[in-house]
């Protein structure tokens, strides 16, 4: 007879094994969905997960998509670790893009080494300002941060829409909903000629290193961990809860804002309506899949970035609807959460003859 028994302690090995299990189960379930839709499952999975990254260009695109995901997820891990549910990173990304784009547009006809640092700084500040709204409302007005941060996503997209259609639209742009092109000095340098991968990847890597340091080597990291486990304990230990809430929101806002900068000064080069294909939401999945661990998040961002590329490739070659990407993302999170059961419980074989 098999009995389910609670583990005395969550298993560390399984903690890092379940994300792999979740990805495997997603592939199996994805194959089944493809089969139901009338596609050959193995061929579809090949076009989805292997073909897009099989060449140099594909690999560069993978890094291009993984960069914002990684950056945002690192920021979110600060929030999630300390029990703050910031799910509005998409809005913070958009607002960061708006502020940094505004600065870049001020210098649209100028060149200079100082422009790019200003633009990057503006993006981080923009993201922080936007993230501070749910943080302040949560700490001082007791307002639910989930709903506020999410409502602000819609608002930020409407602000962007207003700007690119109205006051910021390109005067020579035949009324297209887009701004002028930024000057070359406001663009992140490309790493390899002919590929789209840009220097934004260093921002993401820097975030990984800094977050690792903060999580595991500082008092703040310890406080966050304790608050994540139990808010009561944190209060008892005398941690300044409000300060920490605002700080983690600011950090995650800055990361999302920087991801926005990376998009508009990297591949896009101007502001238009769609600065992000929901990176801010997808990064939530990346953060969980990476177990809120900086290194885990790197791997997770690469895996989830494939779902973006795969969706495009599969649409072109097999006419598989592109939303399959989102379906995969949702499934990864479902399976990950489900396999967490193994963390706390184990199956035990019991001899019933005794």
């Amino acid at each position, binding site marked *: 007879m098999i009995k389910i028994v609670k583990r005395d302690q969550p298993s560390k090995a399984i903690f890092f094994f379940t994300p792999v299990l979740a990805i495997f189960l997603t592939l199996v379930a994805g194959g089944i969905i493809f089969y139901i839709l009338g596609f050959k499952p193995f061929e579809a999975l090949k076009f989805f997960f292997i073909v897009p990254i099989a060449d140099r260009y594909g690999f560069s695109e993978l890094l291009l998509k993984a960069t914002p995901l990684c950056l945002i997820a690192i920021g979110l891990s600060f929030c999630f670790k300390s029990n703050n549910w910031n799910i509005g990173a998409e809005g913070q990304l958009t607002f960061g893009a708006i502020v940094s784009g505004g600065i870049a547009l001020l210098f649209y006809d100028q060149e200079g080494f100082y422009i790019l640092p200003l633009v990057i700084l503006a993006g981080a500040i923009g993201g922080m300002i936007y993230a501070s709204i749910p943080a302040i409302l949560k700490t001082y007005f007791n307002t*639910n941060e989930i*709903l506020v941060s999410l*409502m602000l996503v819609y608002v930020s997209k409407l602000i962007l829409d*207003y700007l690119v259609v109205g006051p910021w639209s390109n005067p020579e742009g035949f009324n297209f909903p887009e701004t002028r092109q930024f000057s070359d000095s406001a663009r992140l340098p490309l790493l390899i000629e002919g590929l789209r991968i840009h220097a934004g990847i260093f921002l993401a890597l820097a975030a990984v290193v800094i977050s690792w340091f903060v999580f595991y080597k500082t008092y703040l990291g310890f406080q966050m961990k304790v608050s994540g486990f139990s808010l009561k304990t944190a209060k008892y230990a005398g941690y300044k809860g409000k300060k920490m809430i605002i700080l983690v929101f600011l950090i995650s806002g800055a990361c999302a804002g920087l991801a926005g900068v990376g998009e508009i000064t990297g591949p896009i080069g101007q502001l238009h309506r769609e600065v992000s294909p929901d990176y801010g939401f997808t990064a939530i999945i990346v953060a969980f899949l990476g177990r809120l661990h900086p290194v885990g998040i790197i791997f997770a961002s690469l895996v989830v970035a494939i779902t973006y590329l795969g969706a495009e490739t599969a649409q072109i070659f097999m006419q598989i609807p592109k*939303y399959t990407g989102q379906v995969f993302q949702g499934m990864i999170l479902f399976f990950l959460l*489900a396999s967490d059961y193994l963390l706390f419980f184990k199956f035990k074989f019991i001899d019933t003859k005794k």
Partner: protein
Amino acid sequence: MIIDVNFVGLIIASIMASAVPLILASCGELITERSGVLNLGVEGMMIIGAISGFALMTVTGSLIIAVFGAMLAGVLISTIFAFLTQTLITNHVATGLALTIFGIGISAMIGKNFVGIPGKEFPVLFEGLKDTIPLLSPILFGHSIVFYFAFALPFITSYFLKKTKVGLIVRAVGDSPESASNQGINVKLVRYACILYGGAMCGLAGAYLSMIYTPQWIENMTGGRGWIALALVVFSTWNPIKILIGAMIFGGLTIIQFHMQAIGVRIPVQFLTALPYLVTIIVLVVISRDSRKIRLSTPSSLGKSFHKDN
């Protein structure tokens, strides 16, 4: 200027019509939350309901099958959430988010073949009485059955929670799962039921959007209504009657937006579109500021997993 009373009646009726999906989804979620479960998947369940209703209507041609099918689809998708949060004891917030992402993706996938197909006309009740009473006629008569159901639902929900034994059990499970369990109540079973009921109501809310309110399938057509419905539950301080008031305010904001544009008010359209979201934030701040009141009315175990060791 002479104000035509019937025109005023029509505006009120259109505000009520746009409040319908919010009322349905909020009342469903309210029951789920009253049992202690926070399901953030409302948006996902609504959009699944929207595409299921529209697809079934197009394929089978039967409105009844479509409406009940949409509710069933809501139930099925919420079963995933129920299984994960209740049986596998996963985090409510993360699971709800996954449900929304998954729902939006899968609805777009199914809906690919239904874009651009015109909807069917949904029968309305009491159409003959439409011109009998000035002002009141357009408000009272000539609506779909879902409309009438939605406006009855808050009262039914209130009665259910306050006056019936099952309602008492739901509240007990939400406020103190331990004591409920000690009284011999199967906490998980009750929560399963409440989650599935919430799924059914969200499915119905979605079907109303795609079959009655704007009879067609558009990707992402719920457009954040699921999240506003979630905010409404907080706004109502878990009291179904207040959901009615909140939904009317938000319905009003949506309708005002159309009329302001029609009159030619020189406010950017994006600002008017952002109004419901901004008002949601402001309302949440005002309601939540009184932390004592919120703490008293929030189901005590909301969002917390319950597991009984055997």
